[in-house]
């Protein structure tokens, strides 16, 4: 029996994760992180989610605590998200939250408070090899797989982490929640970025925090063919809003130049590249090179490539990846590590 802290968001996945850890005979305490102090889809400070987590803990008869990490969330997630956009990058705040909040601050607190293990409701699996090393693998339910957003987990983090629902499909998770009479059994999955509301959206969020720059749209010959409201909001590969007057072919953003307020559009083939540089790579065990599968978005299709000296050489030309996006390396279903497109 271990002493386990379960990170509970108030959703069905982490509710069932807590129930499963309890069923395995561990001493379990539920913890909800208060991260975003502003407006959210579930009310100010996401209070109703905290309440759901608290009530699930009551149902499971385990203690529940709320940890306020909102300052750290602002510093490590929200502010960098805003400044990345200001620099024309495409940030993934969920990954930064995992990196800095859940698997750093909380991981640290788990140990400081005398717990043996941390469990979360992520859809991914941790597999321990005969030599004692651990690796992160895709969830059984590949449509819900979250291994991409967990690529930063190293041996130290994996060693005390449990992902109890990684072996279940989403349907099985909900069935279990129903069977256990948990109030979150039918709660809809959370969507998108927790600090951006559906009602106001990303543009409004950024507009309140940074000046958005109207920009011109040019084609590959340099001819001006249109305009955009905010260059900071354009992502490489984006098609929406890129149609040119009178043009019939689909156009894609192939370059975003924030300092010069210019977006270059082109044909799909203009996006294709043979290789891409990556930076800030972290590894599950040790640095890897050679043949890998590469995934460049949360539910993107893994593509074959060769990894060498912080460069990804595609087996077949691929569309450019927006700078700032996470690039995750797999071998089969196993996460080797990842970095950031640059």
């Amino acid at each position: 029996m271990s002493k386990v802290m379960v990170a509970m968001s108030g959703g069905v996945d982490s509710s069932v994760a807590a129930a499963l850890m309890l069923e395995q005979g561990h001493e379990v305490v539920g913890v909800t992180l208060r991260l975003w102090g502003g407006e959210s889809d579930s009310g100010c400070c996401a209070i109703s989610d905290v309440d759901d987590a608290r009530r699930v803990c009551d149902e499971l008869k385990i203690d529940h605590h709320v940890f306020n990490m909102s300052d750290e969330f602002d510093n490590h997630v929200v502010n960098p998200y805003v400044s990345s956009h200001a620099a024309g990058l495409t940030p993934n705040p969920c990954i930064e939250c995992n990196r800095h909040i859940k698997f750093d601050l909380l991981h640290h607190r788990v140990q400081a408070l005398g717990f043996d293990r941390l469990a979360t409701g992520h859809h991914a699996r941790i597999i321990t090899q005969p030599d004692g090393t651990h690796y992160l693998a895709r969830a059984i339910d590949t449509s819900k797989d979250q291994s991409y957003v967990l690529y930063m987990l190293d041996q130290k983090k994996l060693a005390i982490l449990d992902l109890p629902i990684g072996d279940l499909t989403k349907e099985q998770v909900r069935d279990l929640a129903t069977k256990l009479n948990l109030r979150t059994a039918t709660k809809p999955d959370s969507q998108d970025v927790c600090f951006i509301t559906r009602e106001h959206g990303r543009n409004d969020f950024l507009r309140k925090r940074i000046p958005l720059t109207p920009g011109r749209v040019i084609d590959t010959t340099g001819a001006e063919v249109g305009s955009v409201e905010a260059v900071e909001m354009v992502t490489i590969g984006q098609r929406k809003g890129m149609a040119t007057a009178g043009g019939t072919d689909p156009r894609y953003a192939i370059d975003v130049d924030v300092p010069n307020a210019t977006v270059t559009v082109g044909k799909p083939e203009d996006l294709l590249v043979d290789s891409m540089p990556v930076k800030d790579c972290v590894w599950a065990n040790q640095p890897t090179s050679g043949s890998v599968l590469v995934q460049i978005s949360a539910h993107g299709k893994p593509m074959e490539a060769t990894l060498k000296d912080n460069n990804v050489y595609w087996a077949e030309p691929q569309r450019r990846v927006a700078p700032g996006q996470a690039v995750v390396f797999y071998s089969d279903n196993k996460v080797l590590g990842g970095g950031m497109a640059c």
Partner: protein
Amino acid sequence: MTYLDHAASTPTRPEVVEAMMPWFTQHPGNPSGAHQQAREARRAVDEARDAVAALVGADSSEVVFTSGGTEADNLAIDGVLRSKGGTPICSATEHPAVLEPVRDSGGIVVPTDEAGQISLEALAETLNSIDNISLISAMTANNETGVINPITDIAELLEERFPSTYLHTDAVQATAWMDLAKYCEGAHLISITGHKFGGPKGAGALIIKKGVPFLATQRGGGQERERRSGTQNVPAIVGLGKAAQIMMSEREILSARVTDLRNQLEEKLIALIPDTFRTLPAESNRTPQIAHLCFKDVESESLLFLLEQEGIAASAASSCASGAQQVSHVLQAMGIDYEKASGSIRLSLGWTTTEEEINHALNVIPQAVTQLREYSK
């Protein structure tokens, strides 16, 4: 369980519970009614009114029962403004129940000194420079640190130089420890609540001295002499009255006992744990029940977690609606830096606190701080 969170809420005294019980089980009357049962309820409420009036040095007719401290504070500010208009002032260390209505009505929040006390100079300056300040709200004792505001001095300042400005004081945290009849004599409005001094939750009072311009905010049947409508919470008001009576006879002895226990706790923790600081300057004038300490390189949230595991209930700053601890606006207003503030806890004592509880805390807290410091980054 070692309960060191009396400033959040005190255990209800058994005599209070006993006094309340018949008003749940035997007497159904509504005090506004005309029959025998109603008159009984009315009498019980008025006896409680007498007890509260005696406790704060007011006339019974000046006591308006409310649902608690927050309602009393809101009512004091909104009630005076509705009648008289003008601008309210408070200091940055007030309870949100005062800060929010002051801000909402376009009021002025003045800074405090490093102990969190309102500065008389800043107050006089604001009163001199801004016309039509109708109300000042200054808490008797702070809910986080226990620091005491110079209510008598403020009252004198107003009487001498600004006679058309009224003074409200939130005495919620002071009631168990200070002679309000004497200390708050010059205040025109006083808020108290039962559950901070052995009474039940859900019953408080606003004292509105005669002649203070006032218009009710909660309207309806005109109970409480048209100053607060709504059927009185008879059992809770009876409990509040009983608690007030007990305070009258026990306050001095209790204060002496708790001061002694608090000083032991504070001094020993400072001696036992390196890098431990008093949040308030040592010579501050403060109530006896609160030990507020900062532990370097410790997060208060983690410390409270470990204390709870060892059976000690305490708190850090204020809790937000989600239940998370947040860095205190009081400590911020005192100019305490973030690092220090985020490692502070409030240990608050009360009428049930025993020497065993203090010894328990003295055993557990040093160990917990050591454990957290081993892991601190």
